[in-house]
């Protein structure tokens, strides 16, 4: 049993996109704030802080997770994936990211990190989704710019491309 005192900072360690990280947090610190403020990983965005908008969605131990509804202390020892881990290298975009770019599936980009994490996680488990599946998944996100249609298009295109991996496309 571990009991962390309210008024003290405690070490939190986990794996972030394959690399071990560690920083200090009070028990009440949200994971979203821990990522952004303690670790400087600002790719994960914060919109509503009550689970509704989806901007803060990441993957913890293989589970889609609202980082604003999770305490940093809860993920001690876990494996986390955030949007920073999606690109294969610093100068290349992944297949899903390229599809977003081609289809104008983002405008301001505020919702994008969360949506990419949901789709990346979902497509890995469901390689041949229908449009209805993608719409159902997107019900867990709010985008104020795109009207969702280009996001759905990008998701279906990425799924098709991932299903036939021999086809290489440029990032441009």
């Amino acid at each position, binding site marked *: 049993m571990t009991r962390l005192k309210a008024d003290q900072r405690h070490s939190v360690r986990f794996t972030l996109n394959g690399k071990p990280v560690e920083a200090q947090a009070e028990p009440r610190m949200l994971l979203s704030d821990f990522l952004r403020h303690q670790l400087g990983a600002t790719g994960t965005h914060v919109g509503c802080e009550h689970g509704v908008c989806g901007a803060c969605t990441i993957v913890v131990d293989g589970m889609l997770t609202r980082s604003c509804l999770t305490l940093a202390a809860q993920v001690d020892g876990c494996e986390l994936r955030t949007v920073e881990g999606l690109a294969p290298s610093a100068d290349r975009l992944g297949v899903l990211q390229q599809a977003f770019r081609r289809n104008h599936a983002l405008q301001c980009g505020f919702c994008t990190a969360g949506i990419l994490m*949901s789709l990346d996680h979902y497509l890995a488990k469901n390689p041949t989704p229908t449009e209805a599946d993608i719409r159902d998944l997107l*019900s*867990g996100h709010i985008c104020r710019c795109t009207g969702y249609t280009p996001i759905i298009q990008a998701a279906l295109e990425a799924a098709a491309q991932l299903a036939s991996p021999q086809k290489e496309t440029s990032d441009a």
Partner: protein
Amino acid sequence: MKPPAFDYLRAETVGDVLEGLAQQGGDARVLAGGQSLMAMLNMRLAKPKLLIDIMRLNELRQIERKGDAVVIGAGVRQADLLAWPQLGETLPLVALALPWVGHVQTRSRGTICGSLAHADPSAEMPLALVALGGEVLLRSARRRRRVAARDFFAGMMLTARADDELIEGISLPVVKGSRVAFREVARRHGDFAIVACAAMKTPTGVRLAVGGVADVPTARDWPVLDGCALDDALNAFAYELVARDDVHATARYRRDLVRMIGRDLIDEVLQ
């Protein structure tokens, strides 16, 4: 929005949880999937002094078929139950209702028992528990007890659970071969229900359970009625639930939905 300060206890045994609850009583909260509790903390609608995280306890993570019932532990997430291969055959009503609980991204973390403890009047799992006539398994350092669904929900977000009790799990009866139906009206799929109804064929007739209208999900049994008799029964039931107006719908619209969906679902299960 930031939560108020609290101690965080990562329980490693059920004993840890019961001890924490016994010592801190009403100032302690169990932290399960966090999909309702963390939002309440962020909005400072709750100010517990201690959070007891139960999600590292493997012993609470069981889904077990026990004779004519399925027992679901406190650590079972909504997504785990949806993925359980025997769900459709043992608990077809839950299989229909569960996809309406939030979104893929909240079901991945939220638990079945957390939804019952939270007791939102529009929530689908409390409705399913009442419709099926299940039981809640409560445990404290003092005692263990089982509470029937109809006695568990005491009001809007109020239950029969005492401050020092953990919901260890729930038990849902397997109703063999019985026809069930579920329908919900919400602003968007995944939002809390404006009205949700579940119907089930019973040995003597039919049962209809309604959520989102009264402060607690409510079930009613009828013999097989037809035509006007059923319409009258549904109308009386709709009024007894004392619907209220809110930003999402008027009381009158809610009564209409109870009558119309009720009728459809009853026809469906008696077909």
